[in-house]
């Protein structure tokens, strides 16, 4: 058979039973559409999470104090509660460790912030001028804290956009205004750009002040809450992490690794873990949607078996006229492949529409990648062949004499 003949036969066969062909294709359409949508949601979520993590700074190592051990009791208090890290540790890291771009220690404390007619309770971060570089903070208005501010222990403050909105109102320029933190007055010198994220630990609802101002007036000690280190490139992160561990163990005079009084969090590890989880989730969503695709495939097989039985006499005639087994197989196989193919194309369009809809009505990002389209296309063609082969094979196995007599 010429390829044009196979298409002609398929065209007439599919169109001669529009309702049945349509319903069968619908099974595939729904199956493919749900696979495409689910994968796009999974991938979108993975993308969301990793961009959020990366927005906190790239190639980041964060050293935080470990747990304090209460002497005489075999119990530990919460991680990060100890005040074992000091500003000197940050300086030592910057001096002695190779392969890092910048070191940004931070001190934080929660304080009541008051202006005339308004007040809020928010996190106050004592930071250095290196902080924006390390933690990807950008300035919307005014300037960030400078080296000069730190040297002079200036009482200046940079507001997060949400804090600005809470205190001064949305979009107001507060630069030059005075705010009261605790019992001290600070001059606002800048506002940062929103990063997204909300609730506890938001990077938009906070106030930055010079680190030594914070230590001097708010916490009253030279300990720090975190030391953020930006490493030159991702491959050096593990090495730098090990070097910092060795350095700090020596500085803190700890010889037994079990007594370690700090933790180092490696951003690359977190990203790996998160993308692994997101990958598993995508797979799970895809697999659930895949079940409906399987059901669609069974629908194809069911329809093809009915078609073959209905057309027994026609098959007998074709064989009597000289059709070989391969001709019959090709004819019926192409029918099921065309049905799944058309269903696949429509399903991808429907899935694309559905994921755009999901993106529109909810916060979830959805991403349709080329590979998810190629995958669902491949799967639908595969289903057409697999579920169409048995009925086609059956048609080809008919004996022409008995098939011609079939009533």
């Amino acid at each position, binding site marked *: *058979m*010429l390829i*044009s*003949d196979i298409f002609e036969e398929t065209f*007439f066969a599919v169109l*001669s039973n529009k309702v049945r062909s349509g319903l069968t294709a619908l099974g595939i359409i729904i199956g493919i559409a749900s696979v495409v949508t689910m994968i796009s949601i999974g991938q979108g979520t993975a993308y969301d999470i990793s961009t959020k993590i990366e927005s906190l700074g790239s190639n980041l190592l964060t050293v935080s104090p470990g747990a304090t051990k209460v002497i005489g009791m075999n119990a530990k208090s919460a991680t990060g509660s100890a005040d074992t890290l000091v500003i000197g540790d940050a300086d030592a890291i910057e001096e002695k460790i190779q392969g890092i771009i910048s070191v940004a220690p931070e001190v934080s404390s929660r304080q009541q912030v008051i202006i005339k007619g308004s007040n809020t309770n928010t996190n106050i971060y004592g930071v250095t001028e290196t902080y924006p570089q390390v933690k990807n903070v950008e300035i919307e208005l005014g300037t960030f804290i400078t080296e000069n501010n730190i040297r002079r222990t200036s009482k200046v403050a940079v507001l997060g956009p949400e804090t600005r909105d809470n205190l001064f109102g949305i979009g107001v320029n507060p630069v030059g205004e005075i705010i009261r933190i605790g019992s001290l007055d600070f001059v606002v010198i800048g506002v940062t750009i929103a990063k997204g994220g909300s609730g506890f630990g938001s990077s938009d609802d906070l106030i930055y002040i010079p680190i030594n101002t914070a230590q001097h007036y708010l916490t009253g000690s030279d300990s720090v809450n975190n030391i953020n280190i930006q490493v030159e490139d991702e491959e050096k992160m593990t090495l730098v992490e090990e070097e910092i561990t060795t350095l700090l163990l020596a500085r803190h005079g700890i010889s037994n690794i079990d007594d370690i009084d700090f933790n180092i969090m490696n951003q690359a590890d977190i990203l790996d873990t998160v993308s692994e989880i997101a990958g598993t989730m995508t797979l799970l969503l895809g697999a659930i949607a895949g079940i409906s695709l399987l059901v669609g495939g069974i629908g194809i097989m069911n329809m093809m078996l009915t078609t073959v039985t209905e057309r027994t*006499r*026609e098959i*007998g*005639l*074709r*064989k*009597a*006229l*000289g*059709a*070989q*087994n*391969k*001709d019959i197989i090709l004819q019926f196989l192409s029918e099921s492949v065309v049905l799944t193919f058309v269903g696949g194309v429509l399903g991808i369009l429907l899935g694309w529409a559905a994921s755009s809809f999901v993106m529109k009505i909810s916060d979830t990002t959805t991403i349709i990648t080329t590979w998810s389209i190629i995958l669902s296309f491949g799967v639908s063609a595969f289903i057409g062949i697999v579920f169409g082969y048995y009925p086609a094979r059956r048609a080809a196995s008919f004996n*022409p*004499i008995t098939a*011609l007599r079939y009533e």
Partner: protein
Amino acid sequence: MIECKNLTKIYKTGNTETRALWDVSFKIKEGEFVAIIGPSGSGKSTLMHMLGALDTPTSGEYFLDGNDVSNFSDDELAVIRKKKIGFVFQAFNLLPRASVLRNIYLPLVYEEIPREKRYEMADKALKNAGLDKEHYNHLSNQLSGGQMQRVAIARALVNNPALILADEPTGNLDSKTGEVILDTFKKLNKEGRTIILITHEKYIAEHADRVITIKDGEIENDSRKSNQKKIKNIKE
């Protein structure tokens, strides 16, 4: 052109053997018009299946156009049917919901003949079968019985087969239309085509030049028209 040597077909159902055909031998020359006649159950259908390369014999040989078809595989038989044999069935067996033209060139589809050439060949076959050009694009189920059988004849002619095998071609037609169809076969025979007509009606068989009578799976009689006339003359 056609030679059967000791054709035998035995069907086995469980332990019982049925001799559908027993030791049948005959020759048919090119250009002959032969009727095979016999009551139902006589084995004439089995013989037709052998002659039409739809089935192979249990033993014996069948030469069609020089090929010994008796040992061919299913696909080889399909090739023989495609190239050498044109079928006309009692029930017409046209593709429903397909145009007359598509029905006629169906055998050419399996011969992979290019489309332009198909139209030409279908056109010629339709003329030979005596169907008007106006019906070309009609759907086959819109035609009358006689027209359907003409389409079927055109389909049998389209690939220029060595042999046309007609199985009760008038069985589903009224006697008047049947006569016209039989005349068409006669005309085709005069143009040099070999035709085998299978029937159980004696008056239909009489249209042929030679009548082979089958009974209980064996040839009971093989007579030519000229001989029959002679016999009749002697009796008179």
